């Protein structure tokens, strides 16, 4: 216990020293590019801070530690406030104020668009939502929730009925026996030395049967036995193949994100590459 405390103090001291070394050297680096002293000190600090936070987050991979905790908590506070400021200025001042009050519009220096009584409704609903903070009248906040949930439930019902259900059903109408029109080069190039036509048709059949079995897999009111069992088994196989393929496809892209971060560390901070 004593030992680990000693180590963590040493590490802490090391981090502080490194921070200052980086700050000073980045400052002199910026100065040599002709930046005035004040701006160099500031930019040196900011780059060092960004690098420190980057490393703090990466250190999480080793184990949870105070530096990660620091970065995490700082991030939470800053980002919450960031979105609040953006929301306030863009929605509240941008969309709301210009429609309810000329005085406030003048105060916030946004063009007044004329009084619109209907914008008092969200104001009232919004205030009702804030009533939650009181335990006595907290229940009125449910009215606002009911408004939001009801409106969006109706909206989503139609949206998904049309785009996810009906149009997907219509997409399953593919010709299985007639000549194939092609879904693109991936497929039309497919030629395993047998007739391409056959392979294409096979693809269509796989899609058709795949959708069929996939739907059967999602049947809730039939036990997976007999025909249903076989079909749902095929369904889950196709699902698994798909999940594997999607995963494999993603690997590449995810690595590029790390490349971006390491490029920042190696180029912008350490200057190892250009």
């Amino acid at each position, binding site marked *: 216990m004593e030992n680990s405390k000693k180590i963590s103090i040493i590490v802490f001291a090391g981090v502080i020293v490194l921070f200052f070394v980086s700050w000073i050297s980045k400052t002199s680096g910026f100065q040599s590019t002709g930046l005035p002293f004040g701006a160099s000190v500031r930019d040196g600090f900011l780059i060092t801070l960004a690098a420190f936070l980057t490393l703090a987050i990466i250190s999480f*991979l*080793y184990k949870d530690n105070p530096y990660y905790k620091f970065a995490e908590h700082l991030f939470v506070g800053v980002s919450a406030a960031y979105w609040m400021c*953006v929301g306030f200025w*863009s929605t509240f001042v941008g969309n709301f104020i210009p429609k309810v009050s000329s005085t406030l519009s003048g105060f916030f220096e946004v063009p007044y668009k004329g009084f619109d009584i209907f914008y008092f409704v969200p104001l009232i609903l919004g205030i009702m939502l804030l009533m939650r903070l009181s335990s006595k009248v907290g229940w009125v906040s449910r009215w606002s929730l009911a408004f939001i949930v009801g409106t969006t439930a109706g909206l989503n019902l139609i949206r998904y009925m049309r785009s996810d259900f009906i149009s997907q059903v219509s997409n399953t109408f593919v010709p299985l026996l007639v000549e194939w029109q092609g*879904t*693109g*080069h*991936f497929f039309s190039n497919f030629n395993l030395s047998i007739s391409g036509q056959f392979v294409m048709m096979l693809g269509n059949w796989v899609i058709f049967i795949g959708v069929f079995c996939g739907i059967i897999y999602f049947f809730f009111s039939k036990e997976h036995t007999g025909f249903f069992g076989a079909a749902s088994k095929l369904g889950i196989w196709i699902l698994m193949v798909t999940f594997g*393929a*999607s995963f494999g*496809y*993603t*690997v*590449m*892209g*995810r*690595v*590029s*994100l*790390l*490349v*971006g*971060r*390491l*490029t920042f560390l*190696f180029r912008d901070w350490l200057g*190892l*590459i250009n």
Partner: protein
Amino acid sequence: MSNSNIGLVISLLIIGAGLVWLLIRSLQGKEVERRIIFLFIGLSVSVPLLFNITFSEKATPIVRAVFDKIENLPEGSRILLSFDYGPTMAPEVEPMSDVMIRHVLAKGHKLYLMGLWATGQSLGSAAVERIIKNDFPNMVDGVDYVNIGYKAGNQGVLNVIVTDFRKLYSTDVNGRDLDSLPIFNDIKSLKDMDLLISVGGGFPGVKEWVQFAGDPGNVPTAGGCAAVSAPLLYPYYPSQLLGLLGGIKGAAEYESEFKKRYKQFGDMPEPGVKMMGPQTLAHLVIMAFIVIGNLSFFFAGKGRRK
């Protein structure tokens, strides 16, 4: 030069030897600790980055389709590029918007920039500063290119501007009236564009451009997106989506295609191509780990099998 080569060889040897060591351990049925995997991934990305390993790329048809479309449109065609991504996704998709901006302007087309993501506006402005101001100093904002920025409303924005830009957009990002900009003469809606390009990987993105702009407006639409969302877009290719740059690989292919055709951009930065080195190595290491995982599973003895 030779120094860095030695460094490269040594680093690769270390990675290789490490993997062999893990392989031998796995034959004894031992599991690899997570942190060791993390370490190897870190190394496999850092080494090519530090020693600048690159691979040559050949454009696949789906990427070529986009390149050829821009190449074959008559000079002065109107091409709209939408920045539908944020800073976190930028490493993967920014190379695409960068190289496509270069291509569009090098070919002499008119370029319209916008964004369906709030973050797209500043990324668009940054691209103007970084690419257009540097590589095309003679191009005039408002004549050869314009950035009209972001409007809130996701695909709703498309619903509107497919019939009329001016219902939503009255000015460009610099606050200049659209009607005062020569580039917006005769432009009423998205239908007046010759090509729509959406670069992004989330929602709203390429899919929404196809569904709400390209299809209803009958304008050719191309896209660039993160590798993860590309398979979701394949069903739209080629009938609704003319071509697609999927992930950094798509960007790298486009970059090499572009450099082949436009020799004057020989020393242009190739973030896509450059990123392929680390990607390739990290990819190999991940596959090696899958193999190692399976070996340790099979050699772990009966007791551990489920």
